[in-house]
């Protein structure tokens, strides 16, 4: 190893050693690859079920049980929004008629994207907004979570026009909605997301609430 001139002396030995290392590494890769494939098979059904439950949970927070008799998780529609992004819309129906829809909306907060779920009734009134994921500062920006404050609940029952479109902003920007002490950017991001969600509904109302 330490004197270079011994290396060319035994090319065959070196080749076979390299081959041996390759085989060892390959053997371990194959073995653990099989183990992982088997585990994946074993868990795939459960993981799928959990993901569905999660979605169901977040949907049930923004679509009240009383307005539907179907399962909104499986009654979906894909619609492109103004920025050409595909939005999955979950529909709540009662006796076949669409009574409300829910979809994910996104805003930019202080520390990255804020993901929310918004429910809106067929008449355009908000059924509810909930934060699904965010990276805002604990203790300041996280008051947008339902369990940390009731700020997010104040939107329920409002619609585009009540208040008027130009007042769907935080107070600092001349709107109707409170920001909270020490955090303006987070509520502003949420407001932008809700506003875009309302606009999306207005632009696609016929498609979202029309029949099948």
């Amino acid at each position, binding site marked *: 190893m330490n004197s270079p001139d011994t290396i060319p002396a035994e090319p065959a030995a070196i080749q076979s050693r390299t081959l041996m290392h390759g085989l060892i*590494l390959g053997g371990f890769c194959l073995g653990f690859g099989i183990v992982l494939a088997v585990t994946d098979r074993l868990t795939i059904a459960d993981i799928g079920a959990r993901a569905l439950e999660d979605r169901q949970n977040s949907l049930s927070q923004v679509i009240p049980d009383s307005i539907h008799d179907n399962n909104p998780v499986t009654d979906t529609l894909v619609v492109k929004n103004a920025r050409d992004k595909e939005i999955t819309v979950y529909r709540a129906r009662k006796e076949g008629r669409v009574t409300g829809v829910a979809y994910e909306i996104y805003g930019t907060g202080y520390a990255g994207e804020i993901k929310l779920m918004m429910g809106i009734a067929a008449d355009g009134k908000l059924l509810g907004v909930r934060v699904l994921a965010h990276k805002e500062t604990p203790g300041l920006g996280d008051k947008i979570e339902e369990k940390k404050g009731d700020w997010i609940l104040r939107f329920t029952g409002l619609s585009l026009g009540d208040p008027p479109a130009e007042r769907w902003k935080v107070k600092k920007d001349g709107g109707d909605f409170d920001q909270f002490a020490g955090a303006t950017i987070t509520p502003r991001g949420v407001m932008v997301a809700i506003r875009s969600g309302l606009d999306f509904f207005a632009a696609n109302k016929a498609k979202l609430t029309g029949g099948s």
Partner: protein
Amino acid sequence: MANDYKTIVRDGLWDNNGVFSMLLGMCPAMAMTTSATNGFGMGLATAAVMAASSYLVAVFRNRITQEVRIPVYILIVAAMVTLVDLAMNAWMHELYKVLGLFIPLIVSNCLPLARLEAFAAKSPALPSLVDGLFMGIGFTIALTAIGAVREILGSGTLFADASLLLGPAFKTIELRILPADMGVLMMILPPGGFLVTGLLVVVKRLLDLRAGKEIQMGGAHSVA
């Protein structure tokens, strides 16, 4: 041999503690310790990975050549992490929602790799399993301690959401130490991680120093 195991356990839990003595695994030790519960959960997941990978490396130690040992170790750790990740997602979903993002980071934690190289590569299977397990438990204790201090100072609670992780029976250990809004926000932000980890390292060293001094003054220690 029994004595040997005692040393392994002592090393893992205190003398050679991964975080407080070797200063390894600093990334999860600071990133995941915004609460005692998070630290505990992350520690347990790491302990499971460490025990399994130490055992496997020790079993295969005579088949792994010097030249390819590092890729094989990383392969084994990565495989164990993926197993834990999939199993937790499927069967411990509540815990997974809290820790899920950080499980893959166990691969980049240098503590498992350090133990494989320093211990499991040269030791029989059973002692390696014990070493991996107790190093992992020591890691869990360290993370829980850092998390507890940060949580008490930062949010005023202790073991908040523990019932989410351990089951409804543990609702009783969720404590409120300080009134809400009394917390020092910085403690749950990244700087708090550095401050608290540093201070706890100091505390551990002081305790060691004191123990060492007492032994010397008592004249009970044998010169090695």
